[in-house]
């Protein structure tokens, strides 16, 4: 939270003050702002929503979108669901692995982080991937990395 004070985050969450039904949205807002949800922000959301920390932590851990550490500059989501399995995603995943990117551990290499996802809704043009929100159809390790490298400033 280096660039954001506690106060600015609480300000940001202002519209949801006292709303227990806004826990999920509050966490999403924090992640939008910071790129991740630092542990201290869980307390802030709890305070703002007027619920216990445990409740917020429970929501935070339930949803796979939330991260507890800062993401790489480029996040690549690689689909591992059935339609992409049928389109040969195993080869894609092993190629990426061969280049040092592990979609299961999500470890960061050269400011690129690869993660698995279940379905991007591009099931007729698999294997499907998404690079910082940009969809890639008929993905190859080359097309993914080309797009990723272009996005690194």
């Amino acid at each position, binding site marked *: 939270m280096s660039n954001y004070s506690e106060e600015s985050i609480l300000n940001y969450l202002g519209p949801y003050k006292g709303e227990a039904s806004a826990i999920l949205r509050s966490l999403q807002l924090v992640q939008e702002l910071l790129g991740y949800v630092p542990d201290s922000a869980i307390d802030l959301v709890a305070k703002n929503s007027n619920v216990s920390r445990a409740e917020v932590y429970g929501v935070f851990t339930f949803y796979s979108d939330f991260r507890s550490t800062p993401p790489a500059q480029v996040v690549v989501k690689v689909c591992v669901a059935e339609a992409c399995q049928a389109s040969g995603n195993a080869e894609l995943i092993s190629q990426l692995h061969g280049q040092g990117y592990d979609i299961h551990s999500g470890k960061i290499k050269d400011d690129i982080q690869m993660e698995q996802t279940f379905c991007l809704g591009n*099931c007729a043009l698999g294997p499907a991937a998404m690079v910082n929100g940009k969809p890639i159809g008929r993905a190859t390790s080359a097309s993914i990395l080309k797009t990723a490298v272009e996005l690194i400033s």
Partner: protein
Amino acid sequence: MIKVFVPLDSAALSMGADEVAIAIVQSAASQGKDITLIRTGSRGMLWLEPLVEVETSAGRIGFANISTEAVPELIKSGALDTGSHKSSIGLVEEHDFFKNQNRVTFARVGVIDPLSISDYENHGGLVGLRKALEMSAAEVVSQVTESGLRGRGGAGFPAGIKWQTVLNTQSDQKYICCNADEGDSGTFADRMLMEGDPFTLIEGMIISGIAVGATQGLIYVRSEYPHAIDILNRAIAMANEYGLLGSNVLGSKSAFALEVRVGAGSYVCGEETAMLESLEGKRGMVRAKPPIPALVGLFGKPTVINNVMTLSAVPMILAQGAAAYQALGHERSRGTQVFQLAGNIKRGGVVEVAFGITLGELVDIYGGGTNSGKPVKTVQIGGPLGAYLGTESWDVAMAYESLAQAGGMLGHGGIVVFDDTANMAKQARFAMEFCAEESCGKCTPCRIGSTRGVEVIDRIVAGEDQEKNLELLEDLCEVMTDGSLCAMGGLTPMPVRSALKLFPADFGIKTGAKL
């Protein structure tokens, strides 16, 4: 002035449609060609993307698989005037994939600018809503009931009966919740409609609100669909500005407010009660039913929960009358279904036809077989919880009951094709693994059974005590089916059992072994 159309659908974007659109504008300018570029949804012939279209007096002509590099030559060749070019597929609506479809829900997808209300109205939009505004709530509900429309999310529950229940329930507040958490692999119709024709969904939700007396709608969209979320938000802002949404819908006394809520990467939140929990800001834990959400739904209030496709069928039903919709279909499955061809398929995309088309027709005639050119081994219908079927089921009519009779499940209408290199033991294992990963954890058969399922399948494949472990797997499947609160645990045995039954050899089971 020539009108050129380039899709903004995210499947088209994944093949470079944005870059192609930019190249067309730049190339046309540098060549002194006067064009207007219009972004549309996709026609659903996804293997042809990016599919660039140009308006001619005979209709729209398409140019398939256009790359940015090909654009300057395409324009220079005069193809935008003549329609002839090596990439031309001729009139798009005469294409053999397209011309025999019956586009009702998808009538405007790929045709109009998704963010133009006037385009929407010029193509038949808002007719259904205007009619609904003249009717009593009960009349609107009875139109939907008479149409025979059933829930397109998978369960196939009659929409009219659900609406009637909410209408009959007294409450100070009721809600319309649209389930746009399209998490099933092999399905993308909701996404394509939201990106290609969002006003149809918005209109359907307003009509639903009028029908049951709800003034607040929520669309729960998965976070994996950033483009759909963006387009919906822009469309809702336009609808508010236009007076389509707000305290006086189209100048009437009816009020309706609409909001998009974004999911956070949980498959089980596509289950309706888990979705309600998530909309309330909580963990997506499934609720026990009864009470049904129509009586006790969002924040405890009566709630209509329908899928994107269900709500999007409503405007046409109101516009053209229940009888027109009811006239289409097969047995108790009325109307059209938007089938999605996915996976290892040569011509993947969207096929909207009346229920009753055979599975073989969809995969072989529309889909053209596998993309790899190898024989089809199996298809999985209805997402990760759907059964695997083999080519011996090619003659099965695609409708709720007939498919169920063949051991399958229609689900959301997605068909994932696998060629003969697929290993079905792996697929069965994945089904259990996926369930373990995505289970909300509320009930034991799903939470623990899925992990045990992975282990037992591993033992069977390794040849350990096969007969005993097969028995154990069957027992486990039975417990999961009967003992889970929702479809997550309850239907995971479907892909597992069907894979085992159809392809025992993939599990290392010797022919003649007792299954």
